[in-house]
């Protein structure tokens, strides 16, 4: 129970902090997507059902708090989590640069997926150049914030019980979590 609640609470705290502190950012900058960074951390640490469920819930919460289409971030964050987990199982992510690069990649996937869904639903009617600029700025802001979130969140999550989900099955043998 604790290992579900602790990361969920960690994600919610980041979300509440982000919503309250975005006002301090310069006006033209988009808010960094803290949930995306937290979801990528989940991708390194948790199993598909646990991490996927947590990513879905945090995405849903983000949708509700932003007043937008419910399910949009829930879907994109679940996809980003799955992608991170697939990549993390195949490559060794020990260097901080690689983890931050994963945040940038996740940002691109999240942004493109959101744009495509909004485009299909008729929710986007802005020029492609403006959309691309917004997307790039959004990814950049998220990437710049990522070192802080990447350092703090795993320490907080360690307060929860660490169970079998931290162990990956690799070629029939158990191996410790790679990366964070």
């Amino acid at each position: 129970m604790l290992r579900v609640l602790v990361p969920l609470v960690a994600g919610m705290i980041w979300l509440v902090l982000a919503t309250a502190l975005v006002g301090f950012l310069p006006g033209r900058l988009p808010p960094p997507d803290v949930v995306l960074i937290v979801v990528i951390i989940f991708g390194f640490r948790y199993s598909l059902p646990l991490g996927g469920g947590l990513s879905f819930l945090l995405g849903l919460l983000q949708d509700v708090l932003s007043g937008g289409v419910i399910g949009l971030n829930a879907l994109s964050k679940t996809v980003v989590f799955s992608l991170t987990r697939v990549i993390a199982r195949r490559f060794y992510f020990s260097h901080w640069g690689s983890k931050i690069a994963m945040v940038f990649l996740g940002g691109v996937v999240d942004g493109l997926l959101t744009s495509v869904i909004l485009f299909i639903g008729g929710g986007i009617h802005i020029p492609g150049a403006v959309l691309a600029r917004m997307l790039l700025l959004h990814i950049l802001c998220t990437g710049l914030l990522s070192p802080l979130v990447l350092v703090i969140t795993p320490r907080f999550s360690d307060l929860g019980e660490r169970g079998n989900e931290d162990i990956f099955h690799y070629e029939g043998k158990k191996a410790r979590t790679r990366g964070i």
Partner: protein
Amino acid sequence: MVDLRRRRGTLFIVILIVCAAFFISLQISGRYGGDFLHNVVLRIISPPQRAVHWVSKSIRTFFEHHVLLVDLKKENLRLREEVRHLRRENDELREAAHTVERLQHLLLFKKLVPAAMIPAEVIAYSPSAWFRTIVINKGLRDGVQKGMPVVTWEGVVGKVMRTSPGSSVILLVIDRNSSIDVLVQRTRTRGIVEGDGGSRCQLRYFPRTDDIQVGDLIITSGLGGIFPKGLSLGETSKVEKKDYGLFQVVEVRPSVDFSRLEEVMVILSPTEEREG
């Protein structure tokens, strides 16, 4: 044959994605707005949001009033004490003057617009770059209802999108989903202002034959039934007339600085009509 026990993680992810897609399709088709979910989550999240807002505000005030005065320790004790005292007093007076100025503007505005209004404080901002919204500390308990216009003395801020008993989500005019019927003040030509999702708006459906210049003031037309007529929305910052097409491309710079929003006014007009 696929072993479902070994694939249950993948299956779970697929179910989650299908659920999310189902939610999205329900909203796109207009069968479900998600009001209940918004209401429940806003009830839960509003208190911690208020708490964080209060803490951040206190820290900022502390830094502005105390920590920034630490450098004066290099001077002698008496002068430092005196300077600190005077600066703090000065800061407080300046802050008080700013507050009085803001409130005076709000009062003047209230006199100009003949409608019942309530002041509200901005307590949170949208966590998503895709939706430009803010959360205010007034909700159903204070008489705030969906669709009500939100303004400041500078101009139009947006309209109420979601409400809960103690707080409301406001859709800003710069959001992509916002559209308002407007007039160009100088020529009285009508158009529709839509947000671009960044910090600007676009004036849509403005005929290429009509006169418009950079710096023209854009005001609400009052035709949508939500915003009273004559409220400032912004001024044109770019006018582009292409060689083809029926309309001109006009960029509007909102008169409200959304990065510095602290207090807003909710106009309590009991209208059900929607704009845009």
